[in-house]
């Protein structure tokens, strides 16, 4: 259990983390989501006692991190894959960590096996690929068999097989009753692993909700219809009391109605359909909508001007690419 209370970090004028209050609970995977520069890593560093909060408090199982008498068996963290001396072998890197916490030497071999690095245990870490470095960092996190695990962007640099592995790893760790806290800037990745979601932007808490709730609230389900008798069918749909939107390319989008009912309606009115497809707006879109105001670094020419409409329904903007549901985006981005 990790408890944050009004956690704030300022660097001079700039506020990196602004009054964060939330709780990370055991037994589930909690996703920590935010665009680049939102303050995720700063928050995690404060949890680990690396950075001191300007104000507020963060407690690990009720204690401050630097009061833990057994830090690595309480909490294991992967901060970044490069937090190691490249000239040291994987085995020695883990050994010095184990020794500093009185963890038996055999655990080093066990975790090397768990992450699949046994073959390169005696190789220097500087020769490792990003993915192998990431695995070594994860081995360090697992070393003390801790109650709490914290991963900062764990899928960075992993191949699809490695990504699949880490997802299962996190789920099984949570299944054993551990607290699992994982940061990411990819909504699609979180949708596949997290049970609970904490979203921050510019250091401020934007959402603290369960994953099913977030999906239910933010992913707009609708049916796309294309027909040569567009005007006639539009009237029929409206007459039946359905919310219809006309989108570019001549298609219609019908909100909140099962496709079957629309098909039946078309049959009644003897309308020919060229397309009748249920769609789900991507969570990625919902996430971008949620954080659009707080994105710190965005490319010029791609300013999300059409998302600053202030509506509280963060559905995909009309015309947005909505065909690829959540979960489809992580490879391409």
């Amino acid at each position: 259990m990790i408890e944050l209370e009004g956690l704030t970090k300022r660097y001079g004028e700039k506020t990196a983390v602004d009054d964060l209050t939330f709780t990370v609970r055991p037994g589930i995977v909690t996703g920590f989501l935010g665009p680049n520069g939102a303050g995720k890593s700063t928050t995690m560093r404060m949890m680990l006692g690396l950075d001191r909060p300007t104000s507020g408090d963060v407690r690990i199982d009720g204690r401050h991190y630097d009061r833990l008498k057994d830090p690595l068996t309480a909490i294991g963290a992967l901060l970044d894959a490069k937090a190691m001396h490249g000239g040291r072998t994987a085995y020695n890197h883990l050994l010095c960590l184990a020794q500093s916490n009185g963890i038996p030497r055999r655990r080093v071999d066990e975790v090397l096996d768990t992450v699949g690095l046994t073959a390169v245990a005696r190789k220097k870490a500087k020769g490792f690929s990003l993915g192998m470095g990431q695995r070594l960092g994860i081995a360090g996190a697992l070393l003390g068999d801790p109650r709490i695990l914290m991963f900062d962007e764990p899928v960075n640099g992993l191949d699809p097989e490695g990504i699949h592995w880490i997802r299962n790893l996190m789920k099984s760790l949570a299944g054993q009753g551990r607290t699992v806290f994982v940061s990411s800037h990819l909504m699609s990745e979180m949708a596949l692993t997290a049970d609970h979601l904490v979203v921050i932007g510019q250091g401020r808490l934007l959402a603290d909700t369960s994953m099913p709730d977030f999906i239910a609230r933010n992913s707009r389900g609708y049916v796309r219809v294309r027909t040569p008798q567009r005007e006639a069918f539009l009237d029929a749909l409206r007459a039946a009391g359905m919310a219809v939107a006309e989108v570019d390319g001549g298609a219609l989008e019908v909100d909140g109605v099962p496709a079957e009912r629309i098909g039946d309606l078309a049959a009644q009115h003897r309308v020919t359909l060229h397309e009748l497809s249920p769609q789900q707006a991507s969570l990625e879109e919902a996430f971008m909508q949620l954080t659009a105001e707080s994105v710190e670094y965005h490319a010029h020419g791609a300013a999300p001007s059409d998302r600053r409409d202030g509506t509280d329904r963060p559905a995909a903007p009309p015309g947005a690419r909505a065909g690829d549901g959540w979960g489809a985006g992580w490879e391409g981005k």
Partner: protein
Amino acid sequence: MSTPQHPTPPSAAPQWQAGSGPSYPGYTSPIPVVRTHLGHAIASEWTKIRSVRSTIWTLGVFVVLVVGIGLAVAGLVSGSATEVDYGQESPLSFGFFGVLLGMMCVVTLGVLTTASEYGTGMIRTTTTACPSRGRVLAAKSIVFFAVAFTVTFVSVTLVGLMDVAMLDGARQPTGQEWLKATLGVSLYVALLGLLSLLVGSIIRHSAGAITLMIALVLAPLVIALFMVAQALEWLRSGLFSYSIPSQIGVFYSTSLGDSGPSGWDPLWIAVGVTAVAFAGAVALLHRRDV
């Protein structure tokens, strides 16, 4: 480089024991909880210092310089000098030159012991594993000091024995001279290395800290060399006699000038400066973010 084998599912994680936990629910590990102390940190730092190549390199070069130059000088002297040339000089004093050069290696290793952790990012892992920052610095200091002292002591003792054996025309050194040229020099060099370690912790940048330490060792001497104005004579002689090479010379009775430290004074000066640096480094560690 072979690719990592396909990882097994995390079956290595021991079973979850329900119930019996503390007031906070969740997973309880079968690994016994150990209350960590300084001993754990020292074991960890020992593994760290012996598992990087820079330790082997710097200490290897140190031994080569101290022993090599020590023997070369003794060889030159014994080849040309007569009994009269030695005068009252102790044969041990020829060990000075090797130590003077070799010292730079100890300074470098001292700086790297702390500063390289900041350079590589290892410090975040270290601090996560041992949140007591003062304990980490103390463990590093103890391990480094022990290593530097042992290596220096063995090297200078070897050189001393060789000097006495090769320069049979010179007088036998006294017990006090032996003590200063072995124990005294080793303690002084190890302390200088420890000071470098602390400077590395304060500066957090290897190249910067090494430059600063080399300047500290050499600058007073070099500045004094060019200080010709009569009015600055007092400063000049002070810089000479308190410069680090001259203070090492005190242990070999070859210091520059008579006004400066004598006997075991350099050691007490080094202890004082290092203690102040340690207090400063600890204070900064507690104040700064990692």
